[in-house]
Structures are given as C-alpha cells and as structure tokens.
C-alpha cells in the first residue's frame, strides 16, 4: 500500500469533539486575533524594526526611514493589491508587470512624443489598462485558456507593445518631471506622498468588496471550489472576467500612472520586476488575518514588512544580494508555517 494514501475524508470524531467546546468568548476572540498564526507578519515586522534599530542605530530609527518605506513601496503595494481580486476568484494574472510597463511608456509617449494634454493622456492610459484587462479576460474566460498560461502569453504581447511604443529607449521630457504631472504621485502631505494615499484608497475598496458584499463572498467561493460555486448559482465566469479587468486597471492604470509620475520618465525596464514581489506579497498576505484568503490588509502588511526589511538591510550596509535572500526566505518561511499549521489543524 502506498504511503501517501489519503485518510478517509470524514472525521467522525469532529462532531463529538466540538460539542464539548464552549462558545468562544471575547477573550478567546482577542487571543485568536493576536495569535502568531493570525498576524505573524506583524510580529516579524516589529522584530525587524527592533533588530535594525540595534544594528543601525544612527540611520534606521528615523522618520526618514518611515517615509522611505511608505513612499518607496506604494507602487509595489498597488501592484500586489491588484492581484487580490483575481487570485480570490481563482485566476492568476501574470501580465501585471507588463501591463504596468506598457502603461508607463504609453503615458510618457502620449505626454512627451505625442504632446497631448496631461488629462487626455491620463484618460487614454486608463482606457488602455482596461483594454488590457478585457483582452486577458477574453483569453481566460471566453476562450477558456488556463489563466497561468494565458496571461503569460498576453504578457509577452504586452512586452512587445512596450518595445514598440518606446522605440526601445527611455522616454524623457521636462513635461514628466515637474509641475502637475510630478505632483500626481509625489505631492506630499506631512512627508507622505500621494501614491501612499492611492494605495490606501485601493486597499479600502478591496477590503470593502471582499468583506462586506455578496460579490466578495462569491469571489472567495469561486476561488475555493469553482464547480460548487457554479452549481450554487454563483456567476463564476463573470466574476473572473471582472477580476482580470480589475488587476489590469489597478496594476496598469493606477500603479502605471503613479510610477510614471514618480520616476518622471517612460522606461522599458520598469514594469516586469514588480511581478515577483507582487505575487510574494499577495501570497504572504493570504497567510495573514484571514487564514488562507487573499486580502487587502494582509497584502499591505506583507509589502511593508518586506519593504522594511529591504530598507533596513540597505541602511545597515548589508550586501546588495541580501534583500532578495530576505524576501525569498520570509516567503518560504511564511508558507511553511502556514502549511504546518493547517496540517496540525486538520490532523
């Protein structure tokens, strides 16, 4: 008999064991909410702050570091948040990095090369982002191509678009580096840039949809068991269609505009590197607060925790490869801990 044989599904003991358990009181609820299992990343974050404050006492525990972490990670957070809705519904979007990149060069092109009004350019960029989303959605939902492969393929097409629009060189111009255009992301309120505000607005919107609407419940159900969801009358395909439009609109539209304003140029290399970090943060976020569900606040915590580690390592003078090692190790550790706990809970 093979050792990996699954145990029978029904757990006859479960019902009996549960009967003896008293209803959770307020104390138990708080204990649960504050448990490592629920908000482990927050504790790791606090630990990181303590460690770096000791390691680099002159540079790390400064107001500047807080600003650097927030302002520097707002775009990463936006891209990571863009994934929460499609991942909840059970579809991957691997094209977000390229969507971000294309919107970046497109916006720069429209403003600098085409000389269009900034407002018009912004509107066209948003439209382009929505169009990318519709293409992804048609490929995955209408043509029923696996989202993993499908969005990888459209990502490749977007990469071609990036090269085409930019002429394979950086687009720079004074229109992008000053005035209103620069203010879109960089204007500061008490040292915090506007892009952080966008990040919060998107997070609140996603949180509200997932936690307080029927649509949110349906998105999770579609992701957990699409067959059951469909048979329960949930419009799974429509939800996935919308999910893929949301990811392109947020990653391409919102994050794409923010990054263009932030760096003041259109660059062929700006988008793709965000993909990996965004997925890391979204998956790490899913282990936080809502136990196995992709969620907005968990994702934000993950981005900021990883960002704090990266910033701290920089300030402490660690070698340049250290941040990547840090991100990889944290992600593996988080997923391993979650896995072990899930096994323990089911065992």
């Amino acid at each position, binding site marked *: *008999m*093979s*050792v*990996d*044989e*699954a*145990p*029978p*599904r*029904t*757990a*006859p*003991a*479960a*019902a*009996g*064991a*549960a*009967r*003896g*358990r008293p*209803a959770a009181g307020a104390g138990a609820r708080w204990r649960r909410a504050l448990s490592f299992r629920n908000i482990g990343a927050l504790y790791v974050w606090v630990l990181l702050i303590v460690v770096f404050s000791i390691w680099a006492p002159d540079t790390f525990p400064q107001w500047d570091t807080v600003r650097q972490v927030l302002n520097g990670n707002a775009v990463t957070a936006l891209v990571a948040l863009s994934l929460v809705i499609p991942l909840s519904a059970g579809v991957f979007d691997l094209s977000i990095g390229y969507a971000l990149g294309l919107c970046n060069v497109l916006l720069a092109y429209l403003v600098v090369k085409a000389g269009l009004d900034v407002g018009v350019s912004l509107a066209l960029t948003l439209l382009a982002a929505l169009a990318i989303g519709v293409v992804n959605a048609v490929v995955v939902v209408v043509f029923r191509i696996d989202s993993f492969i499908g969005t990888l393929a459209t990502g490749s097409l977007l990469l071609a678009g990036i090269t085409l629009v930019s002429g394979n060189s950086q687009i720079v111009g004074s229109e992008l580096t000053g005035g209103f255009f620069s203010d879109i992301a960089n204007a500061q309120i008490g040292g915090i840039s506007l892009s952080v505000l966008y990040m919060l607005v998107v997070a609140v919107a996603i949180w509200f949809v997932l936690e*307080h*609407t*029927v*649509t*949110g*419940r*349906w998105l*999770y*159900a579609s992701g*957990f*068991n699409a*067959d*059951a*969801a*469909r*048979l*329960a*009358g*949930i*419009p799974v395909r429509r939800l996935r269609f919308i999910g893929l439009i949301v990811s392109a609109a947020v990653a391409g539209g919102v994050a794409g505009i923010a990054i263009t304003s932030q760096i003041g140029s259109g660059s062929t290399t700006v988008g793709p590197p965000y993909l990996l970090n965004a997925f890391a943060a979204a998956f790490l976020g899913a282990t936080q607060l809502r*136990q*196995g*569900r992709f969620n907005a606040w968990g994702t934000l915590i993950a981005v900021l925790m990883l960002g704090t580690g990266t910033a701290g390592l920089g300030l402490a003078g660690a070698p340049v490869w250290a941040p990547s090692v840090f991100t990889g190790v944290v992600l593996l550790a988080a997923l391993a801990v979650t896995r072990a706990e899930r096994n323990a809970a089911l065992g």
Partner: protein
Amino acid sequence: MDAAGAPDLRLELRGVAKTFGGTRVLHGVDLDVRPGEIHGLVGQNGSGKSTLIKILAGYHQPDEGSSARLDGEPFQLGAVHDAAFGLRFVHQDLALVLELSAIDNVALGGGYARRRLGTISWTQQRELTERALARFGVEVDMEQPLSRLSAVERTAIAIVRALAGWEERTGVLVLDEPTASLPAAEVERLHEIVRGICDRGASVIYVSHRLDDVVAVADRVSVLREGSMVGTHPVAEVDAARLASMMVGRTVTSGRRLPASAPSHEDLVVRARGLRGRRLAGLDLDVMRGETVGIAGVLGSGREELPYVLAGAGGPAVEGELEIGGRPLPHGSPRRAQLLGVGFVPADRNREAVVGPMTVRENLTMSGLGGLPDRALVRQPRERRSVDGWMEKVDVVPREPERLLPKFSGGNQQKVILARALCRRPALLVMSEPTAGVDIGAREQLYQLIREEVDERGLTVVVASSDVQDLVAVCSRVIVLKDGVAAAELVADEVTEPAILDAAEGVTRITYPTEGWSPT
C-alpha cells in the same frame, strides 16, 4: 506465515479506546475477526467506526490499554506497517489517479517492473498487472485512464493494488465504505470479488453504512454505536431492520410516505421535450406543482445526468426544450436556473457542493438568502439570524456557524447543502443522490425536512437516486429511465422498493455500461 498452524482468530482487538481533545470517541472496543470470514462493521457517522479503522491503519494513536494481535502475535496499534505486514486497506476515496491507466495505478502501489537501465519494462508490467487482475476475476481495459472505467471497476483496481504481494490464507483486508459511491447495480459485482478473496483465505473487514449491502455479503457483522461495540452476530441471525435499530438504539421505521393528494395546480413546474445529452436520448418530462418525482435507473440510463440538466448544469452536449415554471431555461446556466426558482443538491458533495475552506454560515448563504438582493451588502446580524434559524431547522450539530463545513460529518454537511438550496425558497428542488454517505439518523431527518417543505409550501421535488430507499421515502411518482428515455412509471401505491428495483432491472439487462454514449 505458516498456514498449517492456523490460529483460531486472524485479528484480535482488545479494549481499543481513543480520546480526541477530552472527548472519548471509542470506549474500549473489542473485535474478533476469524480467518477467511467477511466481517461487516456498521455504525452511524460518529459511531467511531472510521476512527477504529484509522487506528488500525496507523493514522491515529489509540489510548493506553488498547491491544491487538494478528494471528496470535501482538502488534502495535497506531503505527504504520509496511506492505509485508498482514493488514491491507482500501479507503473510501480509493486514492487512485483517475488520469492514469490500471497498469500505472497498480504499479504506483507495488512499484514498476524495471529493465536493467532503470527504465520501465512496459511489457513485463502489463503482464504483471494482467495476472494480478485475473487472480481476482477482474477484467478491465488496462490501457484506459480510470476515469473511463465504471465505479466498480475502479474499486476492483484499488483492491487489487492493496493486495499486491499478498500470500493466500493470510492477512486482513479492510474495505472502508467500498460501496459508498457505487451504484446499486454494481454492488453485486463487488461482492463477488470480495467473496473470491475470502475463498482464498484472507479475512475481510467490510465497513459500510448500507445495511442491505452488509447483510448481503458478510458472514458476521459487528455494530458500533457511540463509540461502543453493541455486539457481533452471524448475519443469518439478523436482518437490515434489526441492524438499523442496533445502530441507532431504537426502532427505526422506514418513513414510507403516503401517496400525495392530487397535485394542487394544473400548471407545470417542469416541462421538458426531447432532452438529449451524454446519456439522455430524447426524454420528455412533465412535473406538476407540489409533486415529488423520483428518477430511478441503472448507471448510464440518464439517471445521473437528468438532475444536472434540470438545474441548468448539463454539459455542452445537452439540447432539447426545457421550461421551468413556464419560462425557458437555456442549457448551461445554473445561475439562470436558480433565478427561475430551482434549488439544487448535486451528487458529489465534496467536489460539487461543499466549499472547503469556508464556514457553515458562508456555505449556507452562498446561493443568497431568501429575499436578499444578490448584489447587496452582506448585513451580518441579519445573515447570522437567518443562519441560526436554518441550522436549527435542519438540525446541524454542533450549532457552530463559524466552524469550517468540512469538519462536520457527512450527514451534517448534507443538511447544510440542503438548507443552502432551500433558503432561497425555490419552487423546484432538484437533488441527485441526496443521502450518499449520510447515516440513517440524518437520512430520516432529510426525508422529513423535504416532506415538510412539500406539505407546507407546495415545494416541487425531483430526486434522482441509485438508492431506492430515497425514492420510496420521498416520492409520490417514480420514473424509471433506460437508455436515456422513460421506460416505466410508478405512481402512488406502486412506489415500493421491490417495484422500483424490478422496473429498473427488468427494463434492462445491460448492467455495467462503461461507454454508453447516447445514440444521436
């Protein structure tokens, strides 16, 4: 092992106890299994029979004081033994890889035949598999992926794999709910295979909640109730009714429903003309408001397909006219069906109904609460009140709406799924295999709930089941399908178990169709 010194008992369990988190689920159970016997083990969900099997298989550690002997030799319970040890298991879900062939699946248990370079010798492997299958009288197409084989053929392959390297006249084979997902017509074939194994001297522990099944195949039967052994009896001395009362500790009367009074309206809730699909071959169906219609038939008759078609979930191959409440239902849209007032309970609870990582509350309100607009905000106090009410009504135990649904027993899960379908106040309730993997107690409750809904608010019910009991308990009319069309109809007093079985068996002699695509 030396067969000459055959001991009196093959397997001997003494005082096996198990406590989970302070709750005692097994109270010192004794079990004796004789050489070469089929030993039935029955009990409701939660009676401890799965726990006992899991202890034998080594998934659970028993409490102190539990002991066990195999052929007189003491061995440690709660440890995983290797294949050479005398205990073999076939679990309920079979643990087969459906995409792979019989050859691969058997080899995954016992290892592939290799050439010297380490590559697989397919010729040799094919011969090995063929011999292994022939040994137990199993004949299947070994090259086909298992998904193309019938349920009984898959079960047989799982048994063959479990018995790889088995020596005759030794060992104990444990079959955990081998007929749970088997259509009634295929059960007999499984029994033959199991008897064949016992004739060669193996002992079999046959765990089942289908009492007629156990009575038909076992030599002796042991009954567990609430973690204690109620008793062991030769099968000749008990019948299914006696076993049922031993299991629940009271007398069980199979709730036979009186024929419904004439349908209250003349309007049709279901009107189907010329339904065709994978199995259906031009079926016409009319169901009146307030009627309870049963769908019977052997595997491949269209009985499995019809409920899905009525719920808008037929595959792309489905065609034909279908009206629900007088309005056309396009094929392939369960959502549209739901909006027309169809509530659906699918056949495969784990795959098609339960959304695993979600709570009872979330699962119950998944299709939307009655009267609540679909795109509304979730109003939590209101949702909780409604969920509490439904849990009370369908009697989900324990009443913990925030527990994950998979942590409940099969019967409780099914109650939640039924509540999900009912809480939109559907005009038509469609069910497929409504009591698969549900214990007797919960089964009666499910029947009762459905009858109440029918009597109190004129719910119309269509229930397709391979378990004739379901149809007798709920239906006032039964349609027997054969080859995708209605072959017989039983009304009112004619709706009895023997009559349905006769009609289903009588109208067809094709018992195990594996590739019965409907003629088009």
